């Protein structure tokens, strides 16, 4: 991070306050994920049946659930798990997808055609059903949720990287790198990939929100994290049973947390592109 980069980032944020708010939101989420378990007022797992299904109050900011657990504490503690699932899933699909896609886009030919058809087949499946099937087959553990989410995201990254590399592969600086003694492989990894990164960062950021929803969705239908672990999706699923009896807080607060997290990542995406692209600097 040089001074110029910081100044540039500051300039982007000033011109685009929404990005600044989103960035602040993401930073807050990360802080909560790291320090959450230390700062919560109640144990998120210990049940206290005498306090069951209490509406929001000064003691229980977001009320309590059917076992008398503090919803607010559970929300805070769940942040870490949800973020870890989303970030690792997106990270895996980004790294694999970018590399595979970049080689396809650069080399064209048989590799490109084979991978391209494979991607087409994957995209023809309803992705959530695919994820469900994978988790059901592999067993519902956190690693498997991550793997399933990563796999269903992979086609998008492959296609994206392929297209971005493809339009650049005949540019002068790519040939210049070859003339300067780079092999095809290093041209792809050290020259083309860094150049498509800004565009992919946008995709990643949008995808993080989507991955959080996906993990929550899997938990919601009972294929994700198992209770009593606090997780936003499970909390919505468990709370849904009580919504008809007017206990709105069990669904509303985890839903709100999900929505805000997804929104922050989506809004950050556009700003990230401007910050990462050196051409946007004066």
């Amino acid at each position: 991070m040089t001074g110029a980069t910081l100044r540039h980032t500051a300039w982007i944020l000033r011109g685009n306050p929404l990005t600044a708010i989103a960035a602040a939101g993401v930073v807050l989420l990360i802080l909560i994920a790291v320090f959450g378990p230390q700062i919560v007022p109640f144990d998120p797992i210990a049940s206290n049946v005498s306090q069951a299904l209490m509406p929001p109050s000064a003691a229980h900011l977001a009320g309590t659930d059917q076992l008398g657990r503090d919803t607010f504490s559970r929300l805070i503690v769940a942040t870490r798990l949800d973020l870890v699932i989303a970030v690792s899933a997106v990270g895996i699909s980004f790294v694999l997808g970018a590399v595979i896609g970049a080689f396809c886009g650069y080399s064209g030919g048989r590799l490109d055609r084979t991978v391209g058809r494979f991607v087409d087949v994957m995209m023809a499946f309803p992705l959530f059903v695919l994820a469900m099937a994978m988790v059901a087959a592999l067993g519902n553990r956190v690693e498997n949720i991550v793997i399933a989410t990563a796999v269903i995201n992979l086609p998008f990254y492959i296609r994206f990287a392929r297209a971005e590399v493809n339009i650049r592969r005949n540019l002068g600086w790519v040939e210049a790198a070859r003339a300067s003694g780079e092999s095809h492989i290093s041209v792809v990894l050290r020259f083309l990939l860094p150049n498509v990164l800004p565009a992919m960062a946008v995709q990643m950021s949008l995808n993080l929100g989507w991955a959080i929803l996906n993990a929550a969705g899997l938990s919601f239908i009972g294929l994700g994290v198992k209770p009593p672990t606090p997780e936003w999706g499970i909390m919505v699923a468990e709370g849904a049973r009580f919504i008809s009896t007017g206990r709105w807080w069990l669904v509303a607060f985890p839903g709100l947390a999900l929505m805000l997290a997804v929104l922050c990542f989506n809004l950050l995406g556009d700003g990230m592109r401007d910050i990462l692209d050196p051409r946007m600097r004066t």
Partner: protein
Amino acid sequence: MTQPLLRIEDLHVTFSTRRGLVEAVRGVTLSLDEGEMLGLVGESGSGKSVTGFATTRLLDAAGRVTAGRILFRGQDITKIPDDDFRMLHGAAISMIFQNPRAALNPIRAIGQQIADAIQCHKRMSKQQAARETLELLRAVQIRDPERRMAAYPHELSGGMCQRVMIAIAISCAPRLLIADEPTTGLDVTTQKVVMDLLARIAAERGMATILITHDLGLAARYCRRVVVMERGLLVEEAAPRALFCNPRHVYTKRLVAASPTATSRIEDLVTDEERSQYLAMLAACKPRPAPAPGTPLLLDVKNLAKRYDQGSPAVADFSMTMAAGESVGLVGESGSGKTTTSRMICRLIDPSEGAILFDGQSIGHLAARDFHRSPVRKEIQLVFQDPNDSLNPRFTAFDCIAHPLLRLAGMRSGDALRQRVEECAQRVGLPAELLPRFPHQLSGGQKARVGIARAIACRPRLLVLDEPTAALDVSVQAVVLQLLDRLRREDNLAFLFVSHDLNVVRMMCDHTIVLRNGCIVEQGESRAVFDNPKTAYTRELVEAVPHIETGLAAARI
């Protein structure tokens, strides 16, 4: 005295950018009579296109006319509401753009696109519009117009597309046509055909035309009056002959000097005081040492061919030789195979047949994929066509120049590398303070210098230059050509100079090879090839170049 068709009075156009307001046009006054063809000449950033766009009201959202008037038949068109202006578009004022492929809709047949333009302004049935379209296609001399009406832009050549653009532009009989670099990017022979056509149509229909171009020779050949713009100001207005024989403004003098003609030498491209410096430098250079007997040729190419899957070969039976320090020009139109040939010699692509000997050593059999490991890699370097896309956007100028040193010369980061990069930058005239900049923070000329510094960093013996100045303004081109010539003499470099600009090749190269459809048409000493072309094709190429002299000859008629 009659009223002029178009009168621009003290026009100011301002763009709002990140760095505040930028005045692109700062008080331009000019007028144009009915049926006149006016040349508007200037380099990039001179405001010539902005003036044209302001007249047709096609400025982008960031641009605004801040002062002045544009009177078209006495009516100030900067004040007409947008809806009324749309009626003027096409019907009274029309425009031809630089890149015809980009200006045509790729998914509509060209006949439909012309008919659209007609029906936009005239009420008529489909059949009538189709009949008029056919007429127009005939007027722009498209052969077999009935069949071509159903063709899509990608099925036509660049020259054909530009004819279609002209047909659209004249479809509603405008009184004023603004042609913004109408032939830039077309081959010389196509350029001549398209410009002749445009001039004839304008004359026949009494249409006034503003020809916006960076090419003085082109403006001189076709216009009676030329206006020169520099940095938003109009610096000189004169008849072409006066402009070239007796330029008054400093900038015009520089521009006229920098435009290569059939007789100019490299030292002629600058004004007098710079020329003496250059000549002193030449005198200081030692003459090229005669090669010791028995040394192999630097480059010996035998029967090179490149075939792709289908169709005729891209290059067939290409043979040439080059001695150390010699410069050879490779000319031809687009599709002639000159780029393919140069890439094979650089060993970036594999030839299908033939041998390449470098310094007596066969390099043609090494796969291009593995050539980066060959010790010969650093002996053959490239300078690319467009400086804008030849530098990695994420590398600073320093990184760009250092890259081959790190990879090929085995240098490590540190003071030695820094010194070497700075030395290279200094040799190409790039100030050291520009080294930490990214490519987009450099001008076109500076980027070209970085590209050249990168190519010479490892002290190669053969430099392949692929249209090294095609994307540069003439004044920058002049400086870059001199720089290249100096470097060649200093390092005894051999040049393979790929270009479509015959005047540049004539100046830079001892020998010239003319390519057409992948075959050598003619080769020999440059002077002989250009002054006494043996084949009809070479003669056609040479004649199509808009020299300033021929421009004057035409103007005299």
